[in-house]
C-alpha cells in the first residue's frame, strides 16, 4: 500500500499545484489530496465539503472528512475564530486520518483562512481559491482587509486564485450567499474530474423533500461552478480511484457509536448533554425508538449513571455516554457498578482537559482516570476504539463483556473520532450481536447471587422477576449470599473475586499485532485510540525509507493482553505517542525522578518495567502523520549518531 502510494508520489515529482500551472490542463496524478473549504458559519461550506467527500467516496476514492466548527455559536462574520467548514482528504490508498497540510484551499472570505494559515495548516505554495467580492465591497475597511490578506498570502508564496463566486451565483439565484457552496462543489468536481451524474443524484437526494424548485437552481449552480473552473482554471488533479469493492457505511465516530448501541441490542441510553459526546445521543434519540429503545436525558451525569445502573439491574442493557467532566461526576457510581457487579457500558468521548478545558478539542487524557479513578479497588475493563469502524463494533463487544463478566466497561473514544467521517465496510448483521432476551426463569433454590467461581470470580446475576432470586444488592462489603458483613476475610474474598474476573477476561485477549516488523528494530511506537491511523502512516513512510521503526496499537488498556512485554523487549527503543500531557526532559526542572509521563507510557512502565519514553502534547489537535514522521526521523538520526 505505502509503496504504491510513494511510487505515485515520485511519478508526480515536485509540487502538483506548481506542475499543474506548468502543464496547463494536463491532470497531475497524486496518490492523495487534502482540500479545505472555509467560510463563515451558515454559508454552507460544511455541506459543500460533505457532498464533495461523498461523491469522491462513491467514485471509489478513500475519503476522510473533518468538520471545522467554530467555538462560538454565532461567531462574528468574516472573523478568524468564526471559520467554519470542512477538511476533505481523498486518496488512492486507505485513508485513516486527517493527514498533513492542505493541498488546495477554498475561502468564502479571506479572514476565514487566517486561523489555518497561522497554524500552518496549508501546504506552502498551494493554490487558494478565494471569493473576490470583497475587493470591491462597499465598506472600505473590508476592501482594505481583503487586499492586505490577499497580498500577504501572495507574498508568502501561495498561489491565490481570485474567484467571482458571488458574481457568478447571482446569475442564477437571488441570494448568492446560499448558493456559493454548490458553485464550489462544481469547481472542485471539475478540478478533480468527478462524475457529474453522481453529483446530480446527490443533489436530488439531498433536496428531495424540498422538490424541483430547489433542486434545479442547485444543479445550475453546480454546473456553473464546473464550467467556470473548466474555462478559467489550469488546476487538474487525478487522484486514482482505489475502487469501491464492497458496500460501505460512511459515518463519524459518534454516529458509529449510536449505530453500535442499536446493533448491540441495548435498551436504554441515559445521558446528560456534554460536548463532544452529545451528538451520539442526538442521533440515538432519533433512531433508538425504532427498535424499542429510549434515550433518557437526566438532570445530571450522576442521575444518568444511576438510571442506567437501575435499568441494568432490572435486566435491561444500558449505556451512558459522556465526556471527561461527566465521567468525573460518575466516579462514585462507577465504583458501585464494579462492587455490586451491575453490568454497565460507559462511553467517554474524550475532550481537552483538565476541568472544562477545551470542550470541542481532542485529547487522550482520561485513560488513568478511567482505570484508577474510583476510590478503593474497582477493577473494570477499559477499551479504546482506534477507528470509526471500531467505534461501531466496540459497543457490541463492550455490552458482551459487561454482561458476561458482570462489570463496568469503559469505552474511550475522543473528539477526533467523534468529528472525523470516513467509510468502512458495511457490517453484516448477525443475531449474536443482540443481547439475549431478559431472563425471568426461576433461580434454582440455594443458588447465591454472588456465587463467585473460586478461580474466575464469575457468577450468574439474578434479575428482578426471577422467582427465588430475591436478594438485596449493596455497595457495602458482602458475602456470596449478598449479605452485608464486616468480618475479616469477607471483603478480601469479594475484592479478589472481582479482580479475578479481570484476569479471566485477560486470558481471552489476543496479543496485538506489530505494524511493521514483529521481529523488532530500532524503535517501537506504542499508541492507543484515535492516533492509530496517523502513527501507522508515519511508520509506513519511515519504513519505506528503510528506517527500522514499527508500531503497536493497544485496544484493551485494562487489562492488557499477554505478549506485549515480549514485543517491547524486541526493540532497542520504545515510546508512546499520545494526545495528552507529559513533562519533557528538556525542561530544566525535569528529570527521571519527577517527570510525569503520558498515560499509556505510565501503564507500560509499571507493568513491564521497560524504560518507555513518550512524545505527547495537549494542543487539542489530532497529531499529524507528518509530525510523527519528523519526530521518528530525528530520534533515529540522533540514536544513530549516538550509537
Amino acid at each position, binding site marked *: 500500500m505505502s509503496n504504491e502510494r510513494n511510487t505515485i508520489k515520485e511519478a508526480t515529482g515536485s509540487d502538483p499545484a506548481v506542475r499543474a500551472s506548468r502543464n496547463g490542463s494536463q491532470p497531475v496524478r497524486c496518490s492523495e489530496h487534502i482540500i479545505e473549504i472555509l467560510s463563515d458559519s451558515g454559508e454552507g461550506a460544511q455541506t459543500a465539503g460533505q457532498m464533495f467527500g461523498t461523491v469522491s467516496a*462513491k467514485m471509489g476514492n478513500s475519503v476522510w472528512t473533518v468538520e471545522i466548527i467554530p467555538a462560538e455559536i454565532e461567531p462574528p462574520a468574516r472573523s478568524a475564530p468564526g471559520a467554519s467548514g470542512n477538511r476533505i482528504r481523498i486518496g488512492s490508498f486507505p485513508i485513516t486520518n486527517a493527514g498533513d497540510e492542505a493541498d488546495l484551499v477554498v475561502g468564502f472570505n479571506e479572514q476565514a483562512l487566517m486561523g489555518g494559515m497561522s497554524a500552518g495548516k496549508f501546504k506552502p505554495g498551494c493554490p487558494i481559491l478565494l471569493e473576490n467580492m470583497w475587493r470591491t465591497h462597499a465598506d472600505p475597511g473590508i476592501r482594505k482587509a481583503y487586499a492586505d490578506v490577499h497580498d500577504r498570502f501572495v507574498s508568502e508564496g501561495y498561489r491565490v486564485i481570485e474567484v467571482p463566486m458571488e458574481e457568478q451565483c447571482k446569475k442564477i439565484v437571488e441570494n448568492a450567499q446560499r448558493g456559493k457552496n454548490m458553485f464550489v462543489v462544481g469547481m472542485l468536481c471539475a478540478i478533480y474530474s468527478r462524475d457529474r451524474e453522481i453529483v446530480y443524484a446527490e443533489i436530488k437526494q439531498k433536496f428531495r423533500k424540498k422538490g424541483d424548485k430547489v433542486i434545479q437552481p442547485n444543479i445550475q449552480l453546480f454546473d456553473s461552478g464546473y464550467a467556470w473552473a473548466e474555462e478559467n482554471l489550469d488546476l487538474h488533479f487525478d487522484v486514482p480511484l482505489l475502487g469501491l469493492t464492497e458496500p460501505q457505511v460512511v459515518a463519524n465516530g459518534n454516529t458509529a457509536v449510536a*449505530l453500535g448501541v442499536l446493533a448491540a441490542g441495548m435498551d436504554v441510553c441515559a445521558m446528560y448533554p456534554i460536548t463532544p459526546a452529545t451528538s451520539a445521543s442526538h442521533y440515538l434519540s432519533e433512531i433508538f425508538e425504532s427498535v424499542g429503545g*429510549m434515550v433518557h436525558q437526566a438532570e445530571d451525569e450522576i442521575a444518568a449513571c444511576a438510571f442506567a445502573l*437501575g435499568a441494568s439491574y432490572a435486566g*435491561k442493557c444500558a449505556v451512558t455516554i459522556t465526556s471527561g467532566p461527566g465521567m468525573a461526576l460518575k466516579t462514585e457510581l462507577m465504583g458501585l457498578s464494579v462492587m455490586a457487579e451491575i453490568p454497565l457500558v460507559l462511553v467517554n468521548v474524550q475532550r481537552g482537559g483538565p476541568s472544562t478545558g477545551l470542550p470541542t478539542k481532542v485529547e487522550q487524557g482520561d485513560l488513568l482516570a478511567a482505570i484508577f479513578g474510583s476510590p478503593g479497588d474497582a477493577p473494570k475493563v477499559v477499551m479504546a476504539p482506534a477507528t470509526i469502524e471500531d467505534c461501531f463494533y466496540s459497543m457490541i463487544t463492550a455490552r458482551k463483556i459487561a454482561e458476561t463478566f458482570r462489570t463496568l466497561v469503559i469505552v474511550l473514544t475522543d473528539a477526533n473520532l467523534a468529528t472525523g467521517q470516513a467509510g468502512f465496510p458495511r457490517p453484516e448483521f448477525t*443475531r449474536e450481536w443482540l443481547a439475549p432476551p431478559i431472563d425471568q426463569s426461576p433461580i434454582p433454590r440455594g443458588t447465591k447471587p454472588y456465587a463467585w467461581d473460586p478461580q474466575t470470580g464469575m457468577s450468574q446475576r439474578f434479575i*428482578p422477576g426471577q422467582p427465588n432470586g430475591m*436478594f438485596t444488592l449493596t*455497595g457495602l462489603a458482602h458475602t456470596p449470599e449478598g449479605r452485608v458483613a464486616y468480618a475479616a476475610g469477607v471483603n478480601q474474598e469479594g475484592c479478589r473475586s472481582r479482580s479475578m474476573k479481570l484476569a479471566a477476561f485477560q486470558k481471552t485477549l489476543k496479543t496485538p499485532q506489530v505494524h511493521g516488523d514483529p521481529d523488532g528494530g530500532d524503535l517501537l511506537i506504542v499508541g492507543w485510540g484515535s492516533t492509530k491511523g496517523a502513527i501507522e502512516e508515519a511508520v509506513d513512510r519511515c519504513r519505506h525509507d528503510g528506517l527500522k521503526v514499527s508500531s503497536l496499537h493497544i485496544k484493551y488498556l485494562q487489562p492488557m493482553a499477554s505478549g506485549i512485554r515480549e514485543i517491547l523487549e524486541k526493540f532497542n527503543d520504545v515510546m508512546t505517542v499520545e494526545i495528552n500531557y507529559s513533562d519533557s526532559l528538556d525542561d530544566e526542572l525535569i528529570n527521571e525522578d519527577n517527570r510525569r509521563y503520558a498515560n499509556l507510557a505510565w501503564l507500560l512502565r509499571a507493568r513491564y518495567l521497560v524504560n518507555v519514553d513518550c512524545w505527547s502534547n495537549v494542543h487539542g489537535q489530532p497529531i499529524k502523520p507528518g509530525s510523527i514522521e519528523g519526530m521518528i526521523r530525528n530520534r533515529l538520526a540522533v540514536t544513530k549518531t549516538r550509537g
Partner: protein
Amino acid sequence: MFGLTNECVLSVEEEFHSMEDYQGRPVRWCPGCGDNGILTAVQRLCRDEQLPPEKSVFVSGIGCAARFPHYMNTYGYHGLHGRALPTAEGVKIRRPDLHVFVNMGDGDCCSIGTAHWIHSIRRNMKMVVMLHDNNVYGLTKMQASPTTPTGQKTNTTPFGAPLRALNPLTTTLGVTNASFVAQVVEWMPELLYDIIRQAFHHNGLAFIRILQRCPHFMPNNFTSLLSDPKNVLLLRHKNGMQVSDAMARLYPTHEEHDPSNLHRAREIAEDENRVPVGILYRNSSIPRYEDMHKPHRVPTWEQNKAALESLFDKHGIFPDGGGAQKGNGNGSR
C-alpha cells in the same frame, strides 16, 4: 402489558404469601426506632396486596432508613447515598411489571438527593416513595439534616442548628407534576397503613413524608406531637385519608381537605403550628414518564435487523456508485 408480556407471563406464583414471607434479614434498628413500624406497615401492604416477592423491588440510598430493603424478602437495591430515586426510575422505565418502592432518610432525600427528589417528582413515574424523616442523620451518628429543628444540638451544630428546618411538603408541592403528596407519622399504624395503601394504588409517583422517631439520637423529638394530640391536624376527605372514629376522637383537630385543592394543600403544608397528617394533594391525571417512553413494540430479531439495515442504507455507499437513494429499501441485502 406495555409489550412486556413476554416477561410478565414468566412469573407464575400462585401460593398465598403471609407477612412472614416478606421478612428478610433480622432487623438491626435500635429498639424503639420508628423504622420498625414503617417496615411492618409495608409488609402488611405486601401481604394484603399479595405482591409477588420477585416482582417487588425496594430501592434505597444509605442511612438507617436505607437498610430497609435488607429487611424485606423481595428484590432490593441498597445503593449509594442520595441516588435512590434515579436508580428507581431506571428500574421502572422498562419494567412496568415491577412494583417499585423507595425508602430514604431525610439526608438521603432532602440533602444529597435533592436534585433527584425534585426531578423524579416532575417525571411522576409510578412508585411509592417513603421519606423516613427523623430530622437527623442517624447512621453517621447525629449530624444536622435539612429537617433538623432550629436550635437542635447535633455533632455538627454543637451550639444548635442555626437554620429553620426545610419543609419537605411545601418544597414537594412546589414542584411541577407533583401528583400525590402525603404526610403521616409512624406511630399511628392505622393511618400509616392507609396512606401507604393509597400511595400504592396511585398511578404515578406517590411521595409520603413519614415523621419517624429516632429514640437513640432524638429522644425528645416530636414530643409535642406525642404529648398533645391537638397539635396533629388530621386531614379527612372521602377522597383522602380514611380516619376511623376512634382515631378522630383521639386526635380532635381535623380539617375536611379535598386533596385536589393544590392551593389549600400548600397553605396547610406551610402552617407550622399544626402538623398535618393525611393526603395533602392528589392528581391522578398527570402523565407518567414511563408511558411517554413506552416502546411501540419489543422488536423481533428481524425488525431489529431491518431497522439497522435501513440505517446502514442511509449512511451507505455501494460499489456500483449508487448511494443512499439506491440503497433505500435494500435492507434485505
